């Protein structure tokens, strides 16, 4: 089933981490397997935030890696840092929420895509996000668990999207959790609720164009597809509109960039989305109950129609 949510404060910064946690926790019943956040903080001029994972975690594993894995994870971290040094990356800061989840603040003037590919060439290493303001966090468990683990409760920003996952066509693990970063596009993330039925056709098309896939989750296609369209010069709105005719299946998905939030709904309007819009706040979710989690007062909401595309500017 899965639940998606998105939030944008126009022209101001708020505690987006806490708000997204409340919204996604209200959607826990739609997907208890994993939870993910893509939240956008104030931009880091001249710097990049890179979040990566050094190991996989599935539903039969504990959050703390065992001794053998611990050593492997440490070796992978060392190799990542060695490769950064080799490429001339200036590492300004490094933090870890778990041994397998790392956050780097870096300065780098070279080709960011090449750097990302070089780092991901380390066994089991996956860059979850890269950008000036995007922080992409995903792990197993409900929203409160993941938010607490990654200390999202204090995160201030302008907007964000999130997802609670009920695993259907792929495993319960972090690589299949949402959001997906639109590699290699800085600050672009995607969450999706639905099923994509021409996944393999589109995936082959994307792979032939040189795009990389890190999972077998159909939702990742939307991130890659968005990145592909943006690389071709499309605007976010163009890409969302194009997807309605090019992507088969039933879907509602949200895309966030450093200053935009967008949504698209398939031709059957088969997957839900409830939308609230005011002059200073946009909130949307699979269910109204998520919006009510942050807006208890009476408000006007509506369901976007089939083939509806909307894009909002921060």
């Amino acid at each position, binding site marked *: 089933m899965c639940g998606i949510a998105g939030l944008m404060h126009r022209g101001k910064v708020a505690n987006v981490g806490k708000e997204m946690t409340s919204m996604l926790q209200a959607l826990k019943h739609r997907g208890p397997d994993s939870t993910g956040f893509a939240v956008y903080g104030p931009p880091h001029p001249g710097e990049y935030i890179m979040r990566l994972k050094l190991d996989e975690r599935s539903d039969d594993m504990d959050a703390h890696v065992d001794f053998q894995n611990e050593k492997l994870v440490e070796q992978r971290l060392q190799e990542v840092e060695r490769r950064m040094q080799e490429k001339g990356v200036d590492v300004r800061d490094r933090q870890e929420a778990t041994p397998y989840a790392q956050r780097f603040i870096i300065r780098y003037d070279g080709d960011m895509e090449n750097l990302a590919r070089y780092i991901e060439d380390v066994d089991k290493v996956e860059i979850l996000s890269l950008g000036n303001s995007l922080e992409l966090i995903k792990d197993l468990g409900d929203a409160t668990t993941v938010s607490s683990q990654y200390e999202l409760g204090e995160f201030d920003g302008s907007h964000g999207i999130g997802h609670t996952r009920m695993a259907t066509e792929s495993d319960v693990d972090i690589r299949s959790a949402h959001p997906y970063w639109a590699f290699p596009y800085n600050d672009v993330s995607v969450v999706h609720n639905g099923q994509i039925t021409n996944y393999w056709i589109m995936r082959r098309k994307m792979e032939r164009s040189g795009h990389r896939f890190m999972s077998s989750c159909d939702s990742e296609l939307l991130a890659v597809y968005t990145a592909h369209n943006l690389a071709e010069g499309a605007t976010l709105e163009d890409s969302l509109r194009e997807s309605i005719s090019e992507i088969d299946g039933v879907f509602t998905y949200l895309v966030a960039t450093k200053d935009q939030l967008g949504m698209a709904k398939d031709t059957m*309007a088969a997957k839900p989305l409830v939308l609230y819009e005011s002059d200073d706040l946009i909130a949307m979710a699979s269910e109204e109950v998520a*919006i*009510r989690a942050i807006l208890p007062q*009476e408000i006007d*909401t509506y*369901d976007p129609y*089939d083939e509806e595309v909307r894009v909002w500017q921060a």
Partner: protein
Amino acid sequence: MAGVSDTELREMTQEDRVKALGMTTEQLTGRSMFIEFKPEEEERFTYPWLADVDFNKRAEIDTDKMMTTEVNERIRELMNEGYGTIVIKNPRGKHSVAVGILSRLNLIVEGSLGYFGLGLIDGPNVRIQGRVGWSCAENMMAGVVVVEKNAGSTFGAAMRGGDLVCRGSVGSRTGIDMKGGTIIVGGDTGALSGFMMQRGRMIFCGNAGKNLGDSMYDGTIYVGGDIQSLGVDAVPAELTDLDRQWLTRKLTQYEMLPEKGVDHFTKIVAGKQLWNYDNLEPSEKKLIL
């Protein structure tokens, strides 16, 4: 049939009455026979195990900290205590609230409901001051539900009777598999509204999305605005005087009559090219052959 009075209707045979009301035009034979309850058979409209309620006894339920099951249990407790008017406060989009109410009750919802609210109801008068999520009043059998704001998709799915009213706009697949009753929408409706509709009537004062009335078997859809496209076997029909009278009466009843009246409404019915009700099943054909 224009100008048929209530007295005349009562004196008609069941078949003539159904035709006079414009409810159906098919031959009432075989498997498509339309069975209608007789008003004098009161026992068919009530359930003997239900408590009598007094509409003047009023109670409030603050649902803010309650689970859905607790809310529904509390409604039943109050009804058993004779409360005939119940106010739901702070519902905050909760799902499946007030389902399965099988007797008369005045229910006021101060706020918005989530999915599957008011499903399977049979008789209550409900007013929702906010909006409702997907599948509001699914399989509703009797009563009146008025939603003051917007509604989600599959509004009134498989509805069998009563009036289901939304003053705002509704999502997609409104009245899917509808089997009776009336759906009235003040604004627009989304794609595939009236999909596989079997009986009943729908009024959309605004626009309708694509594939309106797709694969409808019977029933009538009235649209005041533009229709993006008609579905398979949905066809326009002449808006008769009887239609105008009925539309005016219904819309006036809920204070939703457009200023310019109802003459501009488009009537959509089933083309009945997909019908095969009275055809034999393949196994039956073999027996005859």
